[in-house]
């Protein structure tokens, strides 16, 4: 870091002579160069300090100014010539120096920067953003929905087939088990089980590749269609697609009837608050406490299960390329993949509908894995460069963990995936947590909490204005999570988030945000209301609270 203190300072003496009556006085003042303080103050101070008669004030001021100006110029010249000298006597390499300058210019100024290669993603983003804010938005959404329906049909077909296979295998297995010890040995049972497993794998793979193919085709079709539609809307003379637009709604009604199929909506509990944060200047924020499954924010629902679904979908599409994004915090373990637990569930949900804008989740995760490795390499090389950097003790253990498996991530770290196909969310923060979050005495310095802070920081830098946070830092309840545990945890997270939100005001100048606190579906209604009465106390809800409860 550069600090002003580093500037070499020298002391010089200013001499001023004046006559007062018969007295001849000499004033000597040591001055620090470069002069930091205001010159106008300096002479006033000298006058006061040395009781200098006022009739010499003007003279003193003039001489002082001239002295400072002259000395400063001399300093400049000396420094400058010393620098030139360094080059002539080879202390500084002229090639290295000029390359540094050239690098600075090419990296930071548009005039000297290399021209940018056009990027399909960004062009598509512009086109889409324009279309979704035009009359074509309805058509776009309908098209997306039709694709969704066909994918979900495919998925239900897959599920059916898998189920059938499993049933068949269960029957077979039963038979085998009955014969166990009679005609068949353990060995045979294992063989059958292995066969079953293989058969399942084959079927799953078959479906997976089919799905991948279908979504790939859909995505390509869709993108081509969007670009074409955009062109047609620009010059409406030779419109081929406008015909299609007219046809679309007919198909749609059918589709929506089809989608009117039962969609069991869980009893979601929800409560909203408006808060004002800040000591003098206050920023308004919205808070919401929601009892729901975390994937409810992601699951795409079919049209027909109420107009609100479609509205929500439209809202998400509208804001995709805008500066008010929605984010969700998903708690994951230390491996970047989608093989188990919530990661697997989330991956399943994200596949239910084709993502027309961003790569598939698996692809995004591949990129993340590479970036993680790159980050580790960067960090370790940096640490090797600056070994004297004092670090806290727990770090050693961390470093060991990293060395053992550099592709794993640590608690508090998170990776980000982007989605256009989830119902209420664009950005998912996959925050790594360990078993520590289950313990009763989590502190505010826990990595998971610091991770939340960093997530909120990213929200500031990337215009994510709505963020959903699992209040208890778990997605599912278990036995050790008693009522006092819940209350304690909720208090901690509420307080920390409040602190971070106040901090955020200094990061982004106080932009109004919505923060949703999510609690697992399985907590009791009573618990929910206990938490909802805690929130206004901690956040000091100042205005009247609005109470909304969905049924």
């Amino acid at each position, binding site marked *: 870091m*550069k600090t002003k203190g580093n*500037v070499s300072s020298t002391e010089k003496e200013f001499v001023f002579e004046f006559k007062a009556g018969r007295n001849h006085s000499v004033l000597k003042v040591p001055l620090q160069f470069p002069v930091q*303080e205001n010159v106008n*103050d300096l002479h006033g101070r000298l006058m006061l300090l040395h009781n200098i008669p006022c009739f010499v004030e003007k003279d003193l001021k003039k001489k002082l100014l001239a002295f400072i100006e002259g000395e400063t*110029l001399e*300093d*400049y*010249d000396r*420094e*400058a*010539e010393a*620098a030139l000298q360094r*080059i*002539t006597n080879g202390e*500084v390499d002229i*090639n290295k*120096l*000029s390359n540094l*300058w050239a690098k*600075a*210019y090419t*990296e*930071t*100024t*548009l*005039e*000297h*920067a290399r021209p*940018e290669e056009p990027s399909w*993603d*960004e062009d598509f*983003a512009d086109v889409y*953003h324009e279309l979704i804010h035009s009359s074509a938005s309805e058509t776009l959404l309908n098209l997306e929905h039709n694709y969704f329906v066909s994918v979900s049909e495919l998925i239900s077909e897959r599920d059916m087939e898998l189920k059938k296979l499993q049933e068949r295998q269960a029957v077979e297995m039963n038979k085998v088990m009955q014969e166990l010890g009679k005609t068949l040995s353990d060995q045979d049972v294992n063989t059958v089980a292995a066969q079953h497993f293989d058969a399942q794998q084959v079927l799953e793979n078959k479906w997976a590749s089919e799905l991948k193919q279908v979504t790939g085709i859909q995505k390509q079709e869709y993108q081509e269609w969007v670009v074409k539609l955009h062109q047609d809307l620009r010059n409406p003379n030779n419109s081929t697609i406008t015909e299609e637009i007219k046809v679309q709604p007919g198909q749609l009604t059918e589709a929506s009837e089809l989608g009117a199929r039962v969609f069991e909506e869980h009893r979601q509990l929800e409560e909203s608050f408006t808060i*004002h944060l800040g*000591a*003098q*200047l*206050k920023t308004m924020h919205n808070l919401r406490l929601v009892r729901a499954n975390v994937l409810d924010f992601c699951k795409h629902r079919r049209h027909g299960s109420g107009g609100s679904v479609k509205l929500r979908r439209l809202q998400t599409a509208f804001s995709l*390329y805008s500066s008010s994004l929605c984010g969700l915090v998903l708690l994951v373990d230390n491996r970047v993949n989608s093989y188990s637990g919530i990661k697997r569930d989330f991956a399943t949900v994200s596949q239910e509908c084709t993502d027309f804008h961003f790569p598939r989740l698996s692809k995004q995760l591949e990129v*993340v894995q590479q*970036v*993680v490795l790159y*980050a580790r390499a960067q*960090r370790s090389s940096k640490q090797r460069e600056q070994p004297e950097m004092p670090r806290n003790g727990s770090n050693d253990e961390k470093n060991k963990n990293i060395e053992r498996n550099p592709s794993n991530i640590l608690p*508090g*770290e998170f*990776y*980000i995936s982007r989605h256009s196909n989830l119902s209420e969310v*664009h*950005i998912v923060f996959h925050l790594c947590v360990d078993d520590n979050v289950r313990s009763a005495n989590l502190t505010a310095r826990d*990595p998971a909490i610091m*991770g939340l802070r960093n997530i909120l920081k990213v929200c500031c*830098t*990337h*215009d994510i204005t709505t963020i959903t946070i699992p209040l208890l830092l778990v997605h599912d309840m278990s036995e050790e999570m008693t009522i006092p545990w819940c209350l304690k945890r909720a208090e901690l997270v509420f307080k920390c988030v409040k602190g971070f939100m106040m*901090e955020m005001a200094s990061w982004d*100048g*106080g932009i109004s945000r919505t923060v949703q606190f999510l609690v697992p579906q399985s907590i009791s209604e009573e618990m929910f209301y206990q938490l909802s009465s805690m929130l206004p106390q901690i956040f000091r809800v*100042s*205005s009247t609270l609005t109470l909304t409860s969905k049924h």
Partner: protein
Amino acid sequence: MQPLRDAELGAFTFFASPLPHDVCGSNGLPLTPNSIKILGRFQILKTITHPRLCQYIDISRGKHERLVVVAEHYERSLTDLLKQDKPISSEQVLQIAYEVLEGLAFINRHSLVHRALSPHNVLLDCEGKVKLAKFGFYYMTDHGADVDFPIGYPSYLAPEVIAQGMFQSTDPSLSEIPLPSGPKTDMWSLGMLLFELCAGRQVLQNIEISERLKFIITLGCMDDIVTVLAEEHGCLDVIKELPDNVLLLLRKCLTFLPSKRATPAELLEDAVFERISCLYTRYASPVSLFSSSLRCVHLQLPEDINELCKVDEEDYLTERSVDEVYHLWCLAGGDLEKELTNKGIIQSKPPVCTLPNFIVEDGETFGQGRDRSFLLDDTTVTLSLGQLKNRLKDVAGEAYYPLLEDEQTCLPQSISSNELSAAVSLPLIIRERDTEYQLTRIVLFDRLLKAYPYKKNQVWKEARVDIPPLLRGLAWAALLGVEGDIQAKYESIDKDTPIPTDRQIEVDIPRCHQYDELLSSPQGHIKFRRVLKAWVVSHPDLVYWQGLDSLCAPFLYLNFNNEALAYACMSAFIPKYLYNFFLKDNSHVIQEYLTVFSQMIAFHDPELSNHLNEIGFIPDLYAIPWFLTMFTHVFPLHKIFHLWDTLLLGNSSFPFCIGVAILQQLRDRLLANGFNECILLFSDLPEIDIERCVRESIILFCWTPKSATYRQHAQPSKPTSDGNGFVKTMAFYSSEYQDLPNTDLTREPLKLSELKAEVSPRISAEDLIDLCELTGPAHFKTPVKRPKAVKTKIVAVDIRSSEDFSRGHIPGSINVPYSSVFGPDGELLQCPSTSTLASYKSRVVVILSNITKNAVTFAAHLVKVNFPSVCVLDGGINKMKPTGLLTVPSPQI
């Protein structure tokens, strides 16, 4: 600032470097973002005005450390001259050189160095005169330390600049940061520029940057740099034919060693400009409003006064100063970022596309490509004034030149004047955003303030309507009666010698209104420190109490470039509203103040007062920061401005009414809650609707008898004769109670303990006479007339026994003997007198008795049963006896 004339408004944008993740400053507080540092440093540039410089107007902060600078701008620059592809006449070269040097010499005098001199930063106005642009870029970015990009353009960099390297260069061998560039670096750039003009082509354009820089460095070995340059560019013939003085000028600029190179000021005096310099007159900056010299000293009236009003091209708007025009442009819907986006200068990518992939625990991000939209493009975009002109096309010319002598018309008569007078009744927030309205207000205030202090009374009158935000700083100074050579006074105060208070000031400043960009900038902190220290040093009888920093904040914010004025305003404000609050032992002052405040609560809202007293929530617990800082500690600056716009018009008892008005807004919640909740509520004061608060406090103020807020520790009356011979005819409400002449009928000081024991305020006999409009022997005179519109309804309640009453009482008073209304325990009895009393509930009730203690108890009982507007006559009926105003009722009644 200068009038706009034929200039345009221009804007350019750049990014400050982002801070590293989670690094704290040495004081443990988060680091100040670089954009805020730049914003704070920029402010002083607004005061640098010279005909050869493009006036800086404003800077604004956007998202993600973006900064947009607004400055005077011209479309034509030296680039246009170069594009003609032919050499420029040597006469013109000399002229341009001279004018550039004038500009450079002026900025050098303000310790600025241009460093970014290039053909496109040397603009030409309509007369072809030079205007230097971006001359503050190097300074505002802390010599390039706060931005990622280098300042300056490769071809024009001086050799020593190249040799010194960049601030960003992470070369570990440089343990010491070199000095920033000195004024002579600009001379080299100027030399290159002049060479281009002479040669008629751009130099060093076709080589790589690193080669270019190497070439410049190698010039050090050459004997004749100009010839080498000319040979390199194949224009030796042209250069050879240049007149000697031009060639000499080029050689003087393109001197390799800085010590041998001249400074701009030196070169201006040089012989090469012998024939040119006589064409130019030295620029004298205009005299400021507060100075010891005459403001009219340079005023030259033409022989024929009609020449002043020559009619040509009636574009009055461009005669307004640049900052006013910019302010109006913003009001008329101008949006800097939009203008820049339209011209393609700001190209932002959707945030969803620029997200990082992976973030580690300390917040470092990975997987985020370098975003091209963050690269520097310092093209200046002209802001179109079309929309503003269109908006103002119906404003008549008279609006720009209102006549001040005619006291009757404050608003000009024109077609739109009806609309304007209608606008006055709109809410303040709307008026402040109304372009036409603000134009007329700004013009009017500008003229009034220029005539200050002569037009002081009219400033007061207009301030009662509203104060235009653009001129609030000066308007407040006028309202506070700041006069004299404040600059010299401020400079003569020693603000540097360490004093014991320094530590406390150092702790408080980084916690005072830091949400504001200006006040949180390092420059803001420096200014804060100096103004506060100046105040502490120059008031040896008073001390620094925490809260003084908040009090200083609005003045500093409004007069950021004029510390002396901020200091002068603060020094005028404190004795008026906070007399002796900053004594080392201020407890008696504050205790008295708070007691009067609780009496005011009882007077205006007995129910609330009863509740608060019951739960023990006394003003000492919450109101000290309110009054000690005049609410600056509890409200954000924008609210304080509106609050103080009114506060400054009222007298020192107005703050009581504001306090009561705030309580009124929280009334429901206070009534519903107990002690703990109330403490919590006030520890983080909820949003207060400030316009409503102002409105209500004015009503409360009008409803309060003047003597009810009498304080013995208030500022004693000043000698009324002003040295200037001005007769102050202040309005009734702005005059101080203490300033009124003392008579036998004025209030007498009470001991604090006695005062505390009384629930209701006392009023003086003269107030009673005045309010009841009693006319008696004319020995009593009110010094000022009360406006009829706000007539206070008042009733005098005589609680003596009916015998005493019949022996003589105040005309119009009613007799409610003490024992007839209240029982022994203070409960209200049901009787005819009670209903009589109840029928006067909407009036101010003055209790009078021959025994003051009885009156006080009676009043306390009334308050207990939620009787509003109860007060006690100071001195009782005995005070009234000598006035001869008492009457004896005729027996038949």
